[in-house]
């Protein structure tokens, strides 16, 4: 059989794109073996491009049962041997091994980052039989034909072993922490209560939960204090304008009242008018964090959702590699070529043409750099298929941001007129746009609100039309949302751009937090409490930051994997010893927390009949059937109950019915679309629907 060069990629979509780009006719042959697709392409030689399925290998316990700790002996093994859900990785590894046996050369073409380098390395080492030392590396930031061809023609002579070592260490340290601490918590709870519940914590999860708990504590123990402000309007040239009082807040009500009394119905004079021009610089290019923040604020997409969408756009060669920390766009990406390609789309034509008319294109850039990839930018390719709505939005946002960074600053004019009324000063403010600059490129994602004032001059008379005192209270600090939490993690330097979004989802998945504006659950509090009491180092931000720093140093050859691992084990040993010694107390605390959480999960809302009890999902002792009942039944106060569907899962929908304001339940049944159920038998919406059905029947 003819020998070929085996190119290993990270995902099937990337394999297809690479094969298509490298095949001299752009038509590689797709072969499928046991459900594993791979591609045969012809160029100067035969190329076989085979995809992985993300990580095919993972860290596992060398030997032993799953129900004890501490465990410090580990090895890298196929994922199917450790994870039930990863069965298909077995055939994947078998096919790659078979293809490797006939290959003469090897090229790794996985994403050029920590995870991608590790995926390629483990496949070449374990599935291909120690070929990691003879493998070349394709390095690219987009899956465009041009860049892939260049990466293939001039590959790096070897794998980036420093990056691989850093990746391996990260996985191994995370495994050491995750497995040991999660087992310690889970086993402590199980040994105390006899019931199993998955509890987890980790090197990054713990400190992240700590941020949330700290904020939640502030909110829950917050006591507002009163303050007062003035709301006032003046009449200028027959129009009414809102004006600000010189002092924004008052500590004492009487002082605010005195201002109202003195100025009510009075006429004043414009003392001074200040006109200022100021520039607003274009935004900087997107790194992953900035993109996630922007999509959350504009479209309410969670960081993980944005990351997944951006990854899909990358695999379709529409944008560059999204998991980047860079805020820089080097000239090598060829700005002009991208803009020319983008101008093929009608909606970008005029904007791109404006930029292309310039002699020089220079982007505004941020400070952050990433040695592996530039900031996120559009490749200039247009979609080959109809993108779905979220994909369209994210792509358009990336395109417009890319164009905006090359544009000029926006110029705004602000006017501040100082009005004196009976010894008090009020400010009338106006603003207008003089030159849109970059904002015209970034529409509709930026809005400049203008307040246009009539022509006014100093000495002119102005009459107070309305002046009232406003009673206000200080507010608690805002809750984190997935986006602001991600920013906090980034600022504190914990986790990586690839893992932060997943950590947040894990916190939701474990039931430690709930809702979009993040609320820490009782279980979350208790977990943080236990960790804080018995192993504070695990949730210490500083400790995690130090470990992150050491792992980053491996990437730059300034630290050794072995030292970091030994250090991690030495840190863990006393923590685990303490956890074991106090297992009973921890088990009790956690079991109680789990019990409370399980009860909480079953609570649907307030009882509409007795008003004091809570409606809860209960099970009949006789028939074991489930129903909704009031908690006051146990106090012999209320006997309200409602039937529930007996199949599928039922939980609180966390919202009320629009027709009757009763709490709704969410029903999920296999093979059916989940639905919201209002269990109020006389809900007006049900009545309406019934009438409608009857009318249709007639």
């Amino acid at each position: 059989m003819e020998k070929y060069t085996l190119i290993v990629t990270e995902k099937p979509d990337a394999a297809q794109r690479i094969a298509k780009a490298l095949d001299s006719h752009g038509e590689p042959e797709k072969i499928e073996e046991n459900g594993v697709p791979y591609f045969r392409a012809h160029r100067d030689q035969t190329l076989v491009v085979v995809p992985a399925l993300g990580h095919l290998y993972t860290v596992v316990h060398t030997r032993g049962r799953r129900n004890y700790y501490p465990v410090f002996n580990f090895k890298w093994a196929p994922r199917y041997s450790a994870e039930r859900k990863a069965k298909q990785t077995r055939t994947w590894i078998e096919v790659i091994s078979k293809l490797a046996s006939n290959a003469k050369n090897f090229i790794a073409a996985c994403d050029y980052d920590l995870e991608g380098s590790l995926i390629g390395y483990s496949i070449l080492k374990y599935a291909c039989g120690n070929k990691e030392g003879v493998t070349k590396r394709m390095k690219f930031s987009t899956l465009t034909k041009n860049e892939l061809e260049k990466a293939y023609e001039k590959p790096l002579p070897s794998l980036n072993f420093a990056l691989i070592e850093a990746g391996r260490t990260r996985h191994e340290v995370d495994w050491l922490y995750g497995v040991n601490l999660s087992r310690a918590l889970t086993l402590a709870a199980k040994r105390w209560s006899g019931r199993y519940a998955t509890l987890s914590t980790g090197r990054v999860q713990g400190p992240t939960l700590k941020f949330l708990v700290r904020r939640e504590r502030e909110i829950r123990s917050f006591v507002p204090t009163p303050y007062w402000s003035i709301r006032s309007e003046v009449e200028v040239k027959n129009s009414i304008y809102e004006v600000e009082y010189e002092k924004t807040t008052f500590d004492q009500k009487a002082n605010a009242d005195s201002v109202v009394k003195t100025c009510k119905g009075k006429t004043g004079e414009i003392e001074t008018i200040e006109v200022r021009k100021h520039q607003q610089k274009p935004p900087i290019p997107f790194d992953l964090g900035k993109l996630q923040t922007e999509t959350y604020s504009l479209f309410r997409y969670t960081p993980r959702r944005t990351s997944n969408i951006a990854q899909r756009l990358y695999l379709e060669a529409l944008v560059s590699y999204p998991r980047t920390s860079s805020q820089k766009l080097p000239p090598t990406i060829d700005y002009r070529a991208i803009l020319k390609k983008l101008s093929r789309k009608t909606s970008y034509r005029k904007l791109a043409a404006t930029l292309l008319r310039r002699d020089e294109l220079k982007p505004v850039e941020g400070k952050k750099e990433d040695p592996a990839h530039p900031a996120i930018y559009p490749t200039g390719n247009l979609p080959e298929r109809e993108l779905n709505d979220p994909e369209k939005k994210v792509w358009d946002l990336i395109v417009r941001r890319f164009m905006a960074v090359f544009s000029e600053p926006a110029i705004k004019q602000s006017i501040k007129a100082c009005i004196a009324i009976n010894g008090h000063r009020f400010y009338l403010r106006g603003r207008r746009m003089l030159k849109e600059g970059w904002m015209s490129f970034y529409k509709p994602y930026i809005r400049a609100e203008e307040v246009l004032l009539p022509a006014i001059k100093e000495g002119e008379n102005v009459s107070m039309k309305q002046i009232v005192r406003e009673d206000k209270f200080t507010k608690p600090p805002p809750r984190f949302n997935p986006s602001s939490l991600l920013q906090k993690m980034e600022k504190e330097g914990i986790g990586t751009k690839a893992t932060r979004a997943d950590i947040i989802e894990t916190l939701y998945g474990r039931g430690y937090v709930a809702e979009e504006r993040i609320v820490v659950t009782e279980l979350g509090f208790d977990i943080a409490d236990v960790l804080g009491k018995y192993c504070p180092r695990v949730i210490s931000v500083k400790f995690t930051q130090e470990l992150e720093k050491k792992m980053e140093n491996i990437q730059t050859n300034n630290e050794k994997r072995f030292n970091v691992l030994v250090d991690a084990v030495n840190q863990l040993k006393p923590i685990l010893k303490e956890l074991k010694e106090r297992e009973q107390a921890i088990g009790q605390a956690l079991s109680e927390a789990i019990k409370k959480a399980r009860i909480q999960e079953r609570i649907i809302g307030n009882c509409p009949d007795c008003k004091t009890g809570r409606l809860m999902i209960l099970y009949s002792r006789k028939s074991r059937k489930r129903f909704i009942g009031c908690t006051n039944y146990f106090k012999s106060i209320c006997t309200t109950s409602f039937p529930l569907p007996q199949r599928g899962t039922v939980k609180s929908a966390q919202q009320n019915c629009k027709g009757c304001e009763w709490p709704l339940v969410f029903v999920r049944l296999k093979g059916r679309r989940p639905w919201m159920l209002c269990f109020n038998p006389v809900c007006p919406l049900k009545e309406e629907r019934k009438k409608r059905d009857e009318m249709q029947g007639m």
Partner: protein
Amino acid sequence: MKCKVCEREAENTYCELHNKAYRNILREYDVWKRASSVSWKEYLSEIVQNQYTGVWAKDVAEHLMKDEEK
């Protein structure tokens, strides 16, 4: 000793969580007094009804109000 509000472990009247809320209630009373000369009882009633008061602070304020009534 158990917390008077939530029955968690407590060193004094309240657990660690409710104690923080209690300290806040005591501290902010000075601000309220300066601002609008309310009595302690009026203050507690105000913060129980206020939408921005945290749940633990409300729990403690309600407990303090019940104590006052006794």
